[in-house]
């Protein structure tokens, strides 16, 4: 469903969006509201994939748009709005994740360290269900470092092109390729036992 939203939002006439962005830039809050309606599901989904809890994902979603509104007058129209808003969401998610990790470093280690590994192996030994596979993948993605996770989420979940990811994260195309390859390799290795079973 979300992918349908993504596709539909990308099919919106460019002029329409450019007009909305121009109005929002000039302080038109109704225009900004329309941009919120158009992009909040995508922003939430990125945040949810980057954060560990639903509550954090909602916080990031709200904060992303509030900050975007404040920064709107300075928005550089050479960028596409959705890459800009994705960038804000991604970086806020990384900040929040880092904050959470520092707060509960011990819990994190317990969950994603030895126990996490054990969990994957145990599951691999049994008959893996689709939900177990999905859970193992989710944990594997959560264990990625923020730079790898953001590239993975933007490509695999949001299905952005490499150039869109590069624009969103402000990194070179080659960096996108290498990070994505590393992220996929790490995720694949983490769930490999499960898949083979």
């Amino acid at each position: 469903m979300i992918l349908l939203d993504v596709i539909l939002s990308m099919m919106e006439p460019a002029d329409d969006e450019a007009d909305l962005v121009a109005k929002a830039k000039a302080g038109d809050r109704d225009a900004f509201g329309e941009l919120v309606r158009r992009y909040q599901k995508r922003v939430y989904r990125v945040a949810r994939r980057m954060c560990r809890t639903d509550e954090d994902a909602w916080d990031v979603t709200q904060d992303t748009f509030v900050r975007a509104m404040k920064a709107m007058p300075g928005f550089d129209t050479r960028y596409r709005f959705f890459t800009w808003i994705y960038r804000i969401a991604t970086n806020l998610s990384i900040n929040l994740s880092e904050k959470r990790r520092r707060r509960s470093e011990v819990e994190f280690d317990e969950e994603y360290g030895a126990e996490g590994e054990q969990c994957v192996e145990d599951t691999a030994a049994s008959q893996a269900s689709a939900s177990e596979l999905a859970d193992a993948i989710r944990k594997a993605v959560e264990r990625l470092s923020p730079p790898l996770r953001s590239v993975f989420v933007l490509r695999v979940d949001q299905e952005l092109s490499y150039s869109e990811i590069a624009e969103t994260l402000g990194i070179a195309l080659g960096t996108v390729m290498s990070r994505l390859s590393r992220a996929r390799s790490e995720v694949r290795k983490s769930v490999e036992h499960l898949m083979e079973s």
Partner: protein
Amino acid sequence: MNACPDPSRLMAYMDGELRGAEAADVRSHVESCAACRRIIEKQTLIEKSYRDSFETPSDESFRLMERRIMTSVRAPSRKRLPAFVPIAAALLIAAAGVRLAGRSGLLERPSVETITVTSERDRVEPGDSISGGPPAGAVFESISPDSVAGQAAHFAEDGTALQVQEQQAASSEVEQEDEEHPAMLLPPEDQDTPLAIGGSGGLTTGAGGGAAGQSQAAGAGFYGLVSQTVPGHEETGYNLADAAAGRTCDAEQATEGIASDDSGLLTGPGAEGDVCGSAVDVLARGSVSADRTVSTCGTQLETLAPCPFEEAFSSPVLIIFDSDGEPASPDSVFLDSCFPGWKDSLAGSMLDTALVVTCEEFQDLVVEQGAL
């Protein structure tokens, strides 16, 4: 059969990102290589499962979220800390107790703690000495919270305010800030903490170095510095934020893409116009040189490594309470990481007060308020 392609090329092929001969080469290889096909099959399965497993919240949830967002952006900024207060406080602190407001006779609320600033007015008069504070050429600009007036002061090398100009304040505090940072793309941390206000023509005092004073070295300076991402330098911004958050503290990464020009201003490859301006704002009054040293006004402070976090923990931090008792700090990046929930904990415990405490003291304060 050709050798297996580099994994990143194989993945790019899978994603349809290769074109022409390169795509044909990889396709030809994959058709004859079971191992590569297997990798693609596994990856495809994993990624499909990952996408399909997402549970989208109800439309009602998004409607509620939309209302929350629009309420937030429409709400008046009453609770927002006046932009100039931390800057004024920074100057006060840097002056080691020189009470600018009191000197001008305009202090309206009495001191409560170590140093008190009012959210009403802080003035700099020509001849005020800010020894050890703002560097030569520094610009102090304040915008009064009631949007009536502001002032700008230029400082001499010995810290004396040479020239004070009254300025017409903007009609709105938020709008004024946004105009001052036209290319701001992302504030990864608390936007309520104002950055340096000033043009790109001179070094500016601000939340970073300004708040901490020159003697505080790189630690706190960096927290201000990294509280903004430099447009056009997102990778740089990220790395800086990373370093400040103690994630990598990799000096090489932290300085990636950054250079400082002869005047000590921050520049970067591809930096143009507003990018440069923002870089200056972000940097406040420090600079990062190619040899990984951090300098302020030409004075070398230290190299980026070791982690500035550790050093900052024993350094003073500035906490400012506005007239509603809402706390804020130029060091919020650091404080948020080390003391999650500190703002909620301290909210309302003081009014119109600026505290300068060490992190240890701050921790005691937060513990006393029951946050940790």
